[in-house]
């Protein structure tokens, strides 16, 4: 764990850069997290994905399955990866302030 400045405030992150307290997340934090994933600006489509993930997590305390994410946002897998090249779990979930996804490959 370490403290870094995101969105103009000190935020605790884990070794992979995921924020530890979802409550500190705001749009400014998201913008800085996006930069760590190589996404320099967030378009309306980025926000659509991020806000869907965020809302889903706040309601169910977990990330949605990828197929559900695609169906609810109307984005194909290819579009999701175009928006967040590191993927929905490691990229989009990080930007949305969700916990680090489980599993490894």
């Amino acid at each position, binding site marked *: 764990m370490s403290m870094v400045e995101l969105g103009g405030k000190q935020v605790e992150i884990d070794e*992979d850069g995921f924020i530890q307290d979802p409550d500190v997340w705001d749009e400014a934090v998201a913008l800085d997290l996006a930069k760590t994933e190589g996404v320099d600006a967030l378009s309306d489509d980025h926000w659509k994905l991020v806000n869907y993930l965020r809302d889903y997590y706040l309601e169910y305390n977990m990330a949605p*399955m*990828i*197929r559900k994410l*695609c169906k609810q946002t109307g984005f*194909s*897998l*290819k579009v999701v*990866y175009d928006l967040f090249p590191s*993927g*929905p*779990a490691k990229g989009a979930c990080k930007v949305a302030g969700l916990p680090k*996804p*489980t*599993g*490894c*490959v």
Partner: protein
Amino acid sequence: MDLITVTREEGLRFSVQLRGHVMTTDMSVAEGGKDGGPSPVEYLGVASGACLATMVQAYCDARGFVDGDVSVSLTLELVENPNRVSSIVLDVELPRDVPEGDREKLKKMALRMPVPATLRDGPKVDIEMF
């Protein structure tokens, strides 16, 4: 089925040989490898996508659907304890002239294609140590 052999190159990087073809597998840096190739689990995704693409393309070729090629995008969803794939999510892009009826038919057929069907039914895994 021809023999597949997996031999160590260095670290967690292995060479996979099959009928004169050579592939490489390695783990990501985060998992202790050097990312010298897809991980073994990623090859499971490769097999799924390639199987689907091949079978769907053959269907389209046989029926003369030629306005574009078949392509597949996919990703794996992973869970822990034990580490495993919980789902394989595949998007298949079809030639533009495939009618709606065939799209529905292909979706049903896809689950019966060799790799998806094998994964669904869970093959016996028989291991001996020498």
